[in-house]
């Protein structure tokens, strides 16, 4: 039985570090090294929306993802989302959210409305 093809969005921002990035107003995190899986953990994007996102954001590219890579990408996404929620709580505590409210809101949106 053929495995269903999966897609993901790769961050193509030049020289971006291999770490999670926020691309407002899209959900989740985006990396240059691991694709953000369409329909991955907590991801609401449809393939059509992902195509649109790649068209609208010059720093994203839609790629096909092999099943093996998809599994690894899911693990990374879960890790990034958990770290993101913890960090959001930290910046609200230490005041960084206060001096950059739009960025904190973008991040809250990225981790699914934890705002």
């Amino acid at each position: 039985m053929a495995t269903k093809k999966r897609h993901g969005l790769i961050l193509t921002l030049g020289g971006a570090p291999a770490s999670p990035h926020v691309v407002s107003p899209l959900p989740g995190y985006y990396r240059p090294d691991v694709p953000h899986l369409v329909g991955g953990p907590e991801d609401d994007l449809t393939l059509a929306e992902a195509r649109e996102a790649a068209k609208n954001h010059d720093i994203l590219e839609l790629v096909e993802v092999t099943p093996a890579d998809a599994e690894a990408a899911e693990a990374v996404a879960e890790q990034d989302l958990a770290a993101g929620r913890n960090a959001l709580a930290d910046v609200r505590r230490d005041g960084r959210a206060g001096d950059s409210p739009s960025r904190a809101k973008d991040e809250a949106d990225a981790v699914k409305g934890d705002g």
Partner: protein
Amino acid sequence: MPTGYARMAIESQPGNEVNTPTLSTKKLFPPLQSLQPTRGESPLSRDDELRNVDEPLAVIPESYSPTWEMSVRAYPDTMGMLFSLILGVPTTTAGDGIITDLGGSVIPTNAYRHRFTAPFGPSGPSPRTAQLDLAYADQGVYLKAKGAAASDLTLETPEQGGANVKANGPALYLDEQSDPGLSPSYEALSIPPFFRGNLTVPGLAGGGATQDFGLSINNPVEALRTLGIASLYPDTMFKDNDGGPIVVSGTMPKELLDSTDLAALKAATGFELLASWVSTAIIASGYPYKMFFKAANAQYVEGTPDALANKRRHGASYSWKSTTTSSGSSTFEVVNATASYA
């Protein structure tokens, strides 16, 4: 939604009003606290002309002298970019489980060591410069700065608010542009800036307990009008002829007055200074983001004990400068997840 952004890229040569330098592959949207662009309009006033008019005459555009000033927290990727602007191209080495950082720890795969060693700056007459694309998105105003050099960078690590960097300098061009259509992207908040709890600075052996550590880089540059092009802007960014080399200096106030420090100030005794910022966030294999500054031969150049007063203890204030008798006075190092600043 973001209300604005700035994108920074290093230029292949200082950009001015008419040229189009190649930009570095590395682009950064710094998580700004602020970025102040100033075009520096200096219109021609003709009020000194005898025209039998007893009112100010209309001014006309004559020259622009752009400057920029940025305030941002010391995030690992941002520091690599700012250092590569003011200090020059780093020597980047990928972690391989063998190479070590300035603290002596082995750097694993997927972490990258960016080392900046004095003498700093590119060879030739010009400093490194950057292009800055600024978007006041809500207002629909977009600016572009070209030929932006960093003449000063200061790094403070206060007890609250995270390590803070301020950088500023002149630029060769700053004007409005049409919407560049860029999508900003920021490293997740899970990559924190360096902060006070990350910092250790063993100072002069036997000296008083350190209260604080401030660092400043001065890169003397000047924006000149060399008549190469017809422009109201300067056209060339040069290293300042009278400014001397790039100097790293700073302050190191002491909680306790100690005769060892006073004697070192009097005798201009050199000592090794190693400031280490070790983040709480991990890059790979348990290895955290790090930043180092090492002065092979720091010297106190100014200082005074606190005024004698009715206090339970007295401290002292010192300024230091990184100097050398041969080469390699100062080394900066950032270890992060960025593969290259080229």
